[in-house]
């Protein structure tokens, strides 16, 4: 729900090249299915004749088999590629919060990102937001010192918070580091002992990096204790759980006085329901064990296993003792027939390592699996899959299986964890309430009044009905993010011309797109924002912190507006914002609003005769005086005047005293043209031409033509 609120739509943009690849594959599927049909017919013929299959037929079958297996492989990797997004989007979502949190905490923090181009699965990128957010908040609230303290320590006044991503083999690494005060293992050690989490002797023996891990312990620290241990304990267990849900782990390193670094290591494959599995048979049942969890497979002579007290049989593997279980028995099925030699699969997860007896090892496979619905949930099984020859197989959840081996039930633990996650989300979502208060119909008016009191203006338009609304909203999100990003960069480099231009273009495009779908009120507001950037571009104003705040508020307004539009509600524009914006608007000099922009942009036309009319100029034998009156419905009159003049150059040459734009304006003849032109066409033809081409299409209401020579 919270993800939906933030991310908006359950959709993603797909690169055209990917679609092209997909189309190619579809082509290949068609070809392959055709050749299956051909092969089938051929086999049928042979069968009908009672003949033995020839080599050709066998080869054909082979070719079909090979190409279908290649196509499915290609399809899989394509789907994985399509789901990949740059981590950039996730990183950028922190620019604004970091700025605001730092400001609020009275600290000076710069966010630096590396490896933004790292590709991660879309689902992973979404699930990373909460844990990162949590740690960024902790780092700013507690890890990073205030400017005075940093000065005392001889550290640079501006603290650095770094987000870094990279891929190594099949793992995504994500580092969140700060150059703050670091965590003191001795403080954590003492606290762990105080809370009875570990005996004081044991605590002394544990190395520092192990001690740091105590901050993951649920409820390890309280808020009052937080500052003493740099506050890293608050909700850290939730962070750890979130990452573990992705099949990953969190590592910590910290140096007192220098800073702390958290590293997430996340397997790249977990998000999609395609798993690399080792398939095994146990009695009549087929199981798939995720390859990630498989340590080794071996043949074990039962006579050589150890019978440990109270633990059943164990085997020794690379020097460590591992308990041996019958897979079927562990899952509550009929135990396997015993024999002297058994096949064993050693599996491992974060909660331990066990050895499983199976009947037979089958081939490793890539399997598409369906997660089991909660009500069908069996502890130790995460989903079902189809294995070769249409047999149903069960996917083993190794974590749960190991818990099962230890006699631990899942239910309670899960509930407790969910409650914690919920709690942490609630506290982390001050600005983004998880549950929107539902306003009942009869309360709506009150709400509007309340909004008005809070200085809000409800705009009335929700835009036109458009069929591609969701895509529009998605592109809008991209544009808003880019705009926000550029404004934050401008805050650091307010005089960077290229940035100013970029930012101008951002707001210009946003305005255009809003207008295009009929969101004219919001568009007009953004037009004013664009106007500020335009004035900055001209050097008329410099981007001080007041203006940056306005620009940031404008991007916030846009973000909220986008969320409102998703819910089909009219966007809200703050009256305060409009008021503070008014100060920076260029004073309107001209009487008619329509022409204001021409002057705001200091784009002045000389006499129309000098305007490039792309003339097919004629110097004609007849000279005419022309008077035209027109009433365009949707276009500005003086622009239509230009279009008409251009049109006229097709039959003649305009000359004499042609009014300039200023003249058109000052004489308030925005919808009138008076001019002279020469043409080779006689009067009748000129009239016919005007009737045919001008009257209907340019809304000409009246015209008069006088031949003067």
């Amino acid at each position: 729900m919270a993800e939906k609120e933030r991310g908006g739509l359950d959709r993603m943009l797909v690169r055209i090249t990917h679609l092209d690849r997909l189309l190619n594959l579809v082509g290949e599927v068609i070809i392959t299915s055709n050749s299956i049909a051909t092969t089938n017919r051929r086999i049928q013929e042979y069968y009908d004749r009672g003949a033995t299959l020839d080599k050709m037929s066998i080869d054909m079958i082979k070719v079909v088999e090979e190409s279908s297996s290649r196509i499915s492989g290609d399809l899989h990797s394509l789907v994985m590629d399509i789901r990949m997004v740059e981590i950039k989007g996730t990183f950028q979502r922190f620019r604004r919060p970091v700025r605001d949190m730092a400001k609020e905490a009275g600290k000076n923090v710069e966010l630096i990102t590396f490896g933004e181009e790292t590709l991660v699965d879309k689902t992973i990128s979404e699930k990373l937001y909460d844990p990162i957010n949590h740690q960024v908040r902790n780092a700013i609230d507690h890890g990073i010192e205030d400017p005075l303290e940093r000065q005392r320590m001889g550290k640079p006044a501006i603290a650095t918070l770094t987000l870094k991503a990279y891929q190594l083999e099949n793992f995504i690494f994500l580092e969140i580091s700060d150059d703050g005060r670091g965590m003191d293992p001795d403080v954590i050690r003492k606290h762990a002992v105080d809370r009875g989490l570990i005996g004081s002797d044991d605590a002394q023996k544990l190395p520092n990096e192990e001690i740091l891990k105590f901050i993951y312990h649920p409820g390890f620290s309280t808020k009052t204790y937080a500052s003493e241990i740099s506050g890293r304990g608050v909700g850290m267990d939730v962070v750890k759980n979130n990452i573990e849900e992705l099949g990953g782990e969190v590592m910590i390193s910290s140096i007192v006085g220098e800073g702390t670094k958290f590293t997430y290591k996340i397997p790249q494959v977990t998000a999609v329901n395609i798993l690399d599995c080792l398939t095994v048979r146990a009695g009549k049942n087929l199981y798939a064990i995720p390859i990630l969890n498989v340590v080794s497979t071996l043949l074990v002579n039962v006579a050589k296993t150890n019978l440990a007290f109270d633990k059943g049989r164990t085997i020794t593997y690379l020097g460590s003792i591992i308990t041996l279980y019958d897979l079927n028995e562990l899952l509550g099925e009929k135990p396997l027939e015993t024999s002297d030699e058994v096949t064993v699969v050693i599996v491992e997860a974060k909660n331990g390592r066990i050895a499983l007896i199976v009947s037979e090892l089958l081939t490793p496979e890539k399997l598409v699996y369906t997660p089991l619905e909660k009500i069908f949930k069996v502890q130790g099984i995460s989903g079902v899959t189809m294995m070769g020859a249409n047999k149903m197989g069960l996917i083993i959840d190794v974590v749960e299986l190991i818990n099962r081996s230890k006699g631990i039930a899942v239910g309670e633990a899960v509930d407790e964890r969910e409650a914690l996650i919920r709690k942490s989300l609630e506290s982390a979502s001050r600005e983004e309430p998880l549950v929107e208060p539902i306003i009942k119909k009869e309360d709506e008016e009150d709400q509007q009044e309340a909004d008005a009191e809070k200085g809000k203006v409800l705009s009335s338009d929700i835009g036109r009905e458009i069929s591609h609304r969701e895509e529009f909203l998605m592109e809008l999100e991209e544009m808003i993010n880019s705009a926000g990003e550029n404004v934050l960069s401008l805050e650091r480099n307010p005089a960077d011309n290229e940035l100013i231009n970029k930012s101008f273009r951002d707001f210009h495009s946003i305005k255009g797109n809003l207008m295009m779908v009929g969101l004219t009120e919001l568009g007009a507001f953004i037009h004013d924002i664009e106007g500020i950037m335009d004035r900055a571009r001209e050097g008329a104003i410099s981007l001080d912190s007041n203006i940056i705040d306005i620009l940031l508020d404008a991007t916030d307004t846009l973000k909220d507006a986008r969320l409102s539009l998703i819910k089909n509600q009219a966007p809200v524009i703050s009256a305060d914002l409009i008021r503070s914006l008014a100060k920076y608007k260029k004073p309107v000099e001209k009487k008619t609003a329509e022409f204001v922009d021409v002057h705001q942009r200091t784009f002045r036309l000389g006499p129309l005769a000098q305007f490039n009319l792309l003339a097919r100029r004629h110097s004609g034998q007849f000279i005419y005086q022309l008077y035209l009156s027109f009433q365009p419905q949707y276009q500005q009159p003086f622009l239509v005047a230009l279009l008409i003049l251009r049109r006229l150059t097709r039959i003649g040459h305009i000359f004499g005293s042609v009014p300039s734009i200023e003249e058109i304006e000052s004489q308030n003849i925005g919808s009138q043209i008076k001019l002279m032109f020469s043409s080779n066409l006689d009067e009748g033809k000129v009239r016919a031409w005007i009737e045919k081409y001008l009257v209907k299409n340019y809304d000409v209401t009246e015209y008069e033509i006088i031949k003067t020579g």
Partner: protein
Amino acid sequence: MSIDFTGKTALVVDDYHSMRVALKELLLSYNLRIIEAQNGLEGLEIIRKKKPDMVFTDIVMPVMDGLELCQEIKSDPELLNIPVVVLSTHSDAAYILKAIHNGADDYLPKPIEPGLLTKVLSRITDG
């Protein structure tokens, strides 16, 4: 909506897909065949290769903007007769002026009024 452009092609140039879709939908009702480009440069290449019957372009775009595109089309004797319509908002009169200066044949303010679109289509194709 009396005009039928069956057999005619319009090129739509805009850096945002949703904007291209919006215009495309309107143009399809005139039975125009639509081709798309994401910026002026891509548009120009397509115009040279496919010689569309008309061009609709956004103004502010990366790589090559609509103003430059107008200039390129109108300074090429082979392309000069292809009508170009620029899309803009009412508030951007200065851009439209520039575009007309650079040779644009007409303009459509956003949001596009279907009535005006019909009028503009007949203006640019009536000879």
